[in-house]
């Protein structure tokens, strides 16, 4: 391997070679940030294609006081309607899950209101300093006028919406379960009343986004398989028309009692 005349250098060269590798390893360890951190909390965002409008409607009824309170000509004349909108709108987002069907009137009006609001915002930007005080006063007034009304309104609305959506969700969960149960080959599950729990992921089309996951087995592999097959055979599963409710179906936990009925 080595020539005779190289023996004198062999040891020194070997030490140097090891040193080079140690150096590289050290550089590698220092220069990289080997710890990677993942933020665990993931913000979930719901997208609304249109703003819920009922509150804009309502706020227009509260408006009359403002023109009286603030005699400033430029702004008030140009925007009698939109001025109150910004506030109610923000709060409505949270409160209301679904557009109530009875309020069909507002939509045509909304674009005007938005346009006016935009114009107003642009104006605001220009003459902000002067208007700031007036705006604040105006907002405070509006808020006072609105809060009590909104509070009970919101609470009532919320309760109704929740009840309705819960009802819809439950109904569709029941329908999904019924559809699957219809496909289960019950003879495979034997006697007794086995209980199975499955977790399934759904896509908006009603198809499965992954394999059904058995979270609680009946103890009988054939029975587990029968339910698994039934879930696959039931695709597409029924889902409510309202897409905003889909988040509740994305990951479903279903419990089956194949022999109970």
């Amino acid at each position, binding site marked *: 391997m080595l020539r005779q005349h190289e023996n004198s250098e062999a040891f020194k060269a070997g030490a140097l070679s090891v040193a080079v*590798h140690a150096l590289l390893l050290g550089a590698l360890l220092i220069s990289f940030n080997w710890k990677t951190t993942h933020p665990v909390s993931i913000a979930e965002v719901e997208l609304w294609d249109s703003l819920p409008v009922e509150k804009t409607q309502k706020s227009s009824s509260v408006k009359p006081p403002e023109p009286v309170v603030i005699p400033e000509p430029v702004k008030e004349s140009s925007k009698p309607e939109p001025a109150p909108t910004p506030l109610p709108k923000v709060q409505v987002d949270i409160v209301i899950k679904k557009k109530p069907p009875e309020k069909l009137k507002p939509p045509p009006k909304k674009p005007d209101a938005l346009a006016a609001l935009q114009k107003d915002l642009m104006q605001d930007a220009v003459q902000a300093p002067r208007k700031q005080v007036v705006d604040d006063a105006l907002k405070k007034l509006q808020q006072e006028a609105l809060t009590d009304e909104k509070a009970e309104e919101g609470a009532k609305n919320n309760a109704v919406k929740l009840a309705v959506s819960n009802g819809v969700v439950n109904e569709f969960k029941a329908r999904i379960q019924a559809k699957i149960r219809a496909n289960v080959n019950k003879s495979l599950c034997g006697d007794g009343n086995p209980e199975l729990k499955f977790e399934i992921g759904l896509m908006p089309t009603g198809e499965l986004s992954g394999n059904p996951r058995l979270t609680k087995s009946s103890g009988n592999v054939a029975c587990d398989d029968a339910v698994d097959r039934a879930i696959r055979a039931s695709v597409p599963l029924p889902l409510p028309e309202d897409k905003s409710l889909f988040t509740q179906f994305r990951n479903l936990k279903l419990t089956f009692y194949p022999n109970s009925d």
Partner: protein
Amino acid sequence: MNVNSDMSIFTLIAGASLPVQMVMLILVIVSLFSWWYIFIKVATLKRAERDAEEFEKNFWMGGDLNKLYEGIASGHRKPRGMASIFEAGFKEFARHRQQARMEVSDVMEGARRAMRAAYNREMDDLDAHLPFLASVGSVSPYIGLFGTVWGIMNAFRGLSNVAQATLSQVAPGIAEALVATAIGLFAAIPAVIAYNRFASSVDRLSVRYESFMEEFTNILQRKS
């Protein structure tokens, strides 16, 4: 709240599959050897150049060639480089001259042959280990690539069982696999650079030796 996932180089290596670990081991060994040879070569080539310099200085000082030969032959170390060529040529020349009545051309021919043999031995020493460096330079990236491909294949195979594939499921496997390529490149780059540098040094030395042989032949011819 954060989850720290430890991706240190050690866990990456420990987490790799066996073939990838074998590849890494081979590459580390190869890299160690190539650096060892690189340092040996640097030292020996530097010494050969210094020796050639020194010998040429002594030779062209115009001293007595017999004395120079005595000095070299009596040294306890075996002469190397130009000195060994000179020693072989002069020894052959002197031996032929002592024998009575030999043709000048035959004497010259013998001396030349002896010098050529010494020169070939010297070149062989200078060229030692260069083929190893050349093969490390050209092959180790491929070995590293093989390890990487193997690792990535495994990483993607694991992905096939998962319905919702995310990058975080393959990323660690790919990171592990890429370590093999990194080691391969670390072995290859210095080897290639060293090979080119040593090859040119050896070429320059060989030109120097050859021209010395020609000049020395002329001197011997004048003496005979």
